[in-house]
């Protein structure tokens, strides 16, 4: 049996009385392009932070590439790349300086770091901005730089928290091409995004988190094929009704998360409509 790239067991994170991530059992096989979806505040970023070692779980375990994160965090961090929610760049460096620093922190030798820095800056169309400090970059440029920093050491697993947010269409195309190339070479990508069209186009497997709980997980085709929804507990494979085959990821997503706490549809009622809007 193949070792999963990401494997969590009853992963839980509480902030005071609030449970942000609740008993999540996640399995992502190596080489998968995995989409991790959920509405705002569902627990996506908290999960990514735990998977990348930035946040300690309250309980449960995390294994990345078969290794326990708690035991071998430094080794695991060498094998993963992260584009975090806040990008975490050092604003007072130039793009080239930042990539060189990151390369050296990941143990790349000086020549390799310099070569990859040059290549990545050109690839991300940042080569002309070498004299600018990162703090003066636009949001999209910072996102591209964060992506370049996440891949400079050639990670086996890449975690991307909203990588396309604020990125122009040209840059998004460049990023998507790069991600697909990495997948073709055997890397695993764990992606969160609110742009469901992009997720649908790129990802082969999907998990949906809602109010901290994993409510769906599987291959995109399985979900699309009309898996039968079983309330908040999860998705079970079942006989697919014919019309369900045409359902988009957005429809599936809304069907699963567009509910209130009791599982009732959460659509806006006529009384709640903003009637004063033209």
């Amino acid at each position, binding site marked *: 049996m193949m070792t999963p790239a990401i494997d969590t067991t009853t992963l839980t994170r509480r*902030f005071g009385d609030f449970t942000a991530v609740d008993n999540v059992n996640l399995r992502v096989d190596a080489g998968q392009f995995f989409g991790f979806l959920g509405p*705002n*505040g569902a627990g996506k970023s*908290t999960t990514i932070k735990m998977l990348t070692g*930035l946040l300690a779980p309250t309980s449960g375990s995390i294994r990345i590439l078969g290794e326990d994160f708690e035991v071998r965090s430094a080794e695991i961090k060498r*094998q993963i790349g992260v584009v975090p929610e806040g990008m975490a760049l050092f604003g*007072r460096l130039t793009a080239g300086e930042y990539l060189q620093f990151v390369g050296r922190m990941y143990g790349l030798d000086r020549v*390799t770091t310099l070569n990859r820095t040059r*290549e990545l800056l050109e690839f991300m169309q940042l080569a002309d901005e070498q004299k600018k400090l990162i703090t003066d970059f636009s949001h999209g440029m910072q996102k591209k730089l964060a992506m370049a920093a996440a891949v400079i050491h050639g990670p086996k697993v890449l975690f991307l928290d909203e990588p396309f947010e604020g990125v122009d269409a040209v840059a998004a195309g460049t990023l998507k091409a790069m991600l697909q190339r990495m997948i073709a*070479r055997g890397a695993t990508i764990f992606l969160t995004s609110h742009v469901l069209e992009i997720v649908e186009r790129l990802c082969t497997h999907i998990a949906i988190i809602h109010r901290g709980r994993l409510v769906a997980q599987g291959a995109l085709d399985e979900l699309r094929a009309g898996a039968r929804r079983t309330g908040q507990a999860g998705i079970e494979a079942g006989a697919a009704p014919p019309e369900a085959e045409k359902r988009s990821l957005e429809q599936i997503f809304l069907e699963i998360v567009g509910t209130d706490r009791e599982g009732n549809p959460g659509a806006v009622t006529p009384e709640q409509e903003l009637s004063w809007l033209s």
Partner: protein
Amino acid sequence: MVELTGSQSLPDSMSPIPASTQLLAVAWLRWRIFVNSTFRRQPKNKRQIAGLVFAILLRIVVWPILALMMVGPIVGSGFLAWLAISEGRPQGLAGLLLGIALLWQFVSINGLSIAASIHSFDPASLVRFPLRFGRYFVLRSLLGLLTASTIVGSLALLAAALGIGIADASLALPALVAMAVYALMNIYLTRMIGAWMDRWLANRRFREIFRMIMALSFAAIQFMNLQRAPMRAHGARSGLFLSAMHSSGPYVYWLPPGFAAQAILLAKHPLAAFGQFAALLASTALFAAVFAIRLKKQFLGEYLSEGVSRRVSQQAAPRVRMPALEAAAQSAPAAAGAVFSSTVAACLRKDWIVLRSNGTQLIGMMTPLLLVAIFSMNRAFSSSFSGYFLPAAIAYTLLGVLGPLYNVFGADGRGAQLYLLAPIRMRDVVVAKNLMSLAMVVAESGVAWIIICVFSRARIPVSAQVSTALWTVFVVALNLAIGNLRSIQAPRYFVPGQSRQPRGGTPTNRTSGLLVLGVLFGSMLLQIPVAMASSYFELPWLGAWVFLPFAAAAVFAYAFVLRNVEHLILEHRDVFAEELCKA
């Protein structure tokens, strides 16, 4: 498109990354941040050039003063250590080392660090890199060593070692070794306190309690000071301080300063000296270990902020809580809507809600009042300065509330965009903010005034009160005028009541901070000759007549700035976008 050769070869080997590679990378990072912050940012317009020139001139003036302030404790430590050994009073050495440790911690806690004056980075952000905990600990121990506390403390200890060596050459080597370890102990003690304070101060309730304790401590010290030596000469107080240091010797022997002192003084008895030295090493290791415990938690992914838990709690709550919204609106100054325009009333309500939740600021406003009460109750003090006591006390209470006038949009952050986008007059927004500030100024100085009148044993004549009132109007109106200008020209994003600000530094621009002091002390200097002339020529109403035109001019200046607010804001939209909206 360039081929990504980097992503072709995923590293399979797990050979460890050399420590030197990572440590040098962080050193290089720190160096580049320093170089880029100092030399890289080119001023884009005349205003920025002027700002840069002013900042350089300020440093030329301030840094030598700071350096001179450092020289005192360093030379003093060397001299006192020499005195203790050469005059046969070695027990004073432990007291001296305790004093140096207290100075070290005091300077450190007050954040007078050179590193803080230049752009830096949060060393906690290094946890995302593949570092082992040992390396992270070393990095966290090394980063931030270039602080005033470490420089002054280390040089004071070096001077003390030299002083001991000059007094008795045979003690020179033990003194150098013991002082080096003692310096390390102080470094870890500072780090330990800083790391744990960071942990506790992340909690709003603790911040408020801490601020309250600090305020009460200052008040208690002043109270005891006045009770013990109401109006003694400076020399007498110094004597009291020195005798306290001296008498602390026997107790200090059970603490690290005592271990260090004994390790030096018992150098001729190697076994006993070794025992003391071992105790010093053990205390250093203890502080390092407690610091490491905190760092380990951070390294494993600790979450300190209250932000997420609060935010998610709100999300978990019912979507729209109308009663809560209504309650919030009702608790705001109710009269605001009736008296002012809707913009002014809305801004007042918003700022009132922000102020109400900022317990730290409210506690901060109480501290000067407590001290004014203590000084007012002291008959010797208040009667000695009867002519100046009221204006001086009012100036002191104003000091804390005038600063925020220079950055009225700072707490709004990105929210300031709304002022630019909404179909409102910026003048209304500024008026609302000024009214809120004015309410605080009036409350603070009004309560201080009442305290002085009630508690002060000396009767304050009406003429002096009128003179002080007009002077207060002058100072407040002038600060409002300059403050509005600075708020528009040099805003700075900050989070109210938070000890660690998003971009480091202080909630107010440094130049603005100096301007507050300049205006306040400058106007205080006006008071002195006027009060003296009033007394000399027996013209009790002289102050009132002098400050009346000043107050009128300041009010006129304020009105003039207010009239031009729209134009000023338009002219400085770029600063708003950069400093506040990008925050």
